[in-house]
């Protein structure tokens, strides 16, 4: 990390399965419990409330206009494209460590209950996109009886 940073405290952490396996082979004594904490988890977190479903998508350093949210049935997809320039692209700056995601990223989740997509609301605060979708009331979901002629 150049002259300013000599090392970090817990080594390399990456979502890459191959790298994970490689590091794990170097430290075979580490337990699965520890690896569960070290591995990156989904950026999306779904909370089901009595009358709504709240989906939190953690993606720091963006603007609300960087996001695109799509809901189809019980599938919710969030796309994000960081449009600002990478700090290293300005002037004579150079980066010695680059772990943040630049460019495009997409993640989908299947919601556990039916929702009313048309009434969904989304808000971006402190690096967290929060999408609230009202739940379908009983008898209001999209099941439709089709008459056989």
């Amino acid at each position, binding site marked *: *990390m*150049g*002259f*300013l*940073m*000599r*090392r*970090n*405290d*817990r080594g390399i*952490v990456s979502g890459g399965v191959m790298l994970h396996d490689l590091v794990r082979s170097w430290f075979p004594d580490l337990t699965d419990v520890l690896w569960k*904490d*070290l591995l990156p*988890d989904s950026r999306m*977190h779904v909370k089901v409330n009595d009358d709504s479903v709240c989906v*939190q998508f*953690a*993606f*720091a*350093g*963006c*603007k609300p206009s960087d996001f695109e949210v799509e809901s189809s049935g019980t599938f919710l997809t969030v796309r994000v494209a960081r449009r600002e320039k990478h*700090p*290293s692209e300005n*002037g*004579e*700056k*150079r*980066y*010695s*460590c*680059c*772990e*943040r*995601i630049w460019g495009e990223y997409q993640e989908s989740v299947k919601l556990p209950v039916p929702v009313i997509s048309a009434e969904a609301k989304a808000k*971006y605060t*402190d*690096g*967290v996109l929060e999408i609230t979708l009202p739940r379908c009331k009983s008898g209001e979901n999209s099941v439709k009886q089709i008459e056989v002629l």
Partner: protein
Amino acid sequence: MNGQKEKKVYSERIPVADIVEENDKAMVYFEVPGSKAGNVNIEVKNSILTIEAESCLERHGKPILYKRSFELSDAVDVDNIKATTKDGVLVLTLPKAESAQIKKIAVE
């Protein structure tokens, strides 16, 4: 209750970081989504810089705590480190000590 405050249990995460070096300083960008300036703690002890940021996000029923440490070299002017947060990104400005800055020498 014995009057002691119960210790909060966190789900600890290592925040991803970008480090950008310039001639007179280095900028460190940590992603700490869900954290506000008031919930960030930064300390330097024995040349180890540690950042801790409590998030409003939860994993497995416990609030997330972003925590990461770096060992600083002597080239960093520790007394003038500055920190800001914006949109879930914690930005640290680490000025270089005078002696570590690149000086161009004119050839006569």
